């Protein structure tokens, strides 16, 4: 288990717990694909960048998630040759995927708004 290096001393270097990682996986994958077609390795790199290394995925676990999303008709996949000549499986978001992303975004915003109001040190109505 590799841990994120403590680059920023003011940040807590602890990786985010599994449950949260799993819950945020689908919206993250859909958001990344909403910005353009991508493939497994690049998606994982992007998640690391976005979370400054705190969202630690075991790389292989991404693929069952992608395959499930494909089965649900939210994304589709196609094999394509990369610059190096190797074949790669790319994923593209579909209209149903964008709709699902909008819904998830609204849900996460609701959770975020509730937490923002609830954190100690802030008073309700004083965000």
């Amino acid at each position, binding site marked *: 288990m590799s841990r994120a290096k403590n680059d920023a001393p003011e940040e807590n270097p602890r990786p985010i717990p599994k449950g949260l990682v799993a819950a945020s996986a689908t919206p993250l994958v859909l958001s990344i694909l909403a910005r353009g077609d991508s493939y*497994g*390795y690049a998606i994982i790199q992007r998640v690391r960048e976005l979370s400054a290394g705190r969202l630690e995925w*075991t790389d292989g*676990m991404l*693929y069952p998630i992608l395959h499930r999303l494909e089965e649900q008709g939210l994304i589709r996949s*196609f094999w394509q040759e990369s610059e*190096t000549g190797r*074949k790669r499986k790319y994923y593209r978001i579909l209209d149903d995927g964008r709709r699902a992303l909008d819904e998830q975004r609204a849900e996460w915003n609701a959770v975020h708004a509730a937490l923002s109001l609830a954190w100690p040190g802030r008073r309700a109505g004083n965000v």
Partner: protein
Amino acid sequence: MFDQKAAVERWRARLAETGSLFEADLDELESHLHDHLESLEEVGITGGDAFQTATRRLGDTRSLADEFAKVNPLLAWRAALFWITAGVLLVFGLRPVQELSEHAVIASCMALRLGKTAVSIAVWALAFASPLVFFAVLFPLARRRIESPLPWARSPVFRVGLLVGCALLMLASHLLLDWGFLYAFEKRWSVPALLAAYDAVGNASYALAVAAPIFLVVVAVRQRALAMKNRAAAAPLFWLAVGIFVGAVRCELHLFVREAAMACASVAKLGPAQMNALMWIVTLGCPLVLFASTYGYLRHGAPGPSRVLRAPFVLVVMAASGAMAIAAVFLTNPIASSARIPSAVALAAWNAWFLAGIVTSCALPVIVGGLMLRTLRAGTLALRVD
């Protein structure tokens, strides 16, 4: 010098062995591995270190297999399905053998002019000894194949022989037993002695029908406990016992459904044509519903076989269906004798029953065997989504 190509091949083979990934999944994971290795090379990490880092990042074989099993449920069920269908097919194929050997025993006893008691003893001994011998041979044979249950089953001669053999046996049993050709032949011996022998066969088969589900549930419970104790990835003997159980229970329920349909026809006063249709629907419909529901369950939302094995509900379902089969043994005859149907309707029912029975005799080995072969081949299927 670290041989990266060979290491990748070994890693891929280990993943393939788990049986939970399609070729396309393996291609995709391998492509990911190469992507990672290339980016590590850019920062100067190469050789064994790079390979270690990249494979560790991808996840260990067991947890990868578990995750993929959730999205490829049918593939994960491959081995378990193989043993279940093998068990069902064994019952379908061996039941006629048992019935025909009962008649062979009767014929030999008659030819030897043995007394009634001797005939009964011979019939009872055959009824109970043959399943026990069968288990004594089968289970050690299956146990030796735990690691790789598939190679011998891949041989084309074996497949065709198994399927054609089962179909022929069932056909023979239909013609000889149900259509009474054997009785016509046996009638040259004294009829009362023959009827007494048939009585013994009937009683022995009742006793066996009650004992078999109980025995098979006990076997399954034991195999389940063993598999859980050994933390085995696969529990072939458990699934084999489940398959034999399904086959055995099906035989009893099938007879019960036939008599219940007759009783319903007598209450509803169906005509011969309606009776004919009802029998066809019942005979063909029951196995179809069973197959469709099993397939649907496995395809959509069934947990992996190791999870099902661990869940106590398997044993509850087995106990319940075993109890139903035993109840059916005692209910079938009273229901049959309560039915009052005109002889024309009864004749239509029996004709439909025999013809549909022959159709299922031929179709069932094909369907069950086809499913078995499909699940066998699924492991090597290259499903590409181009």
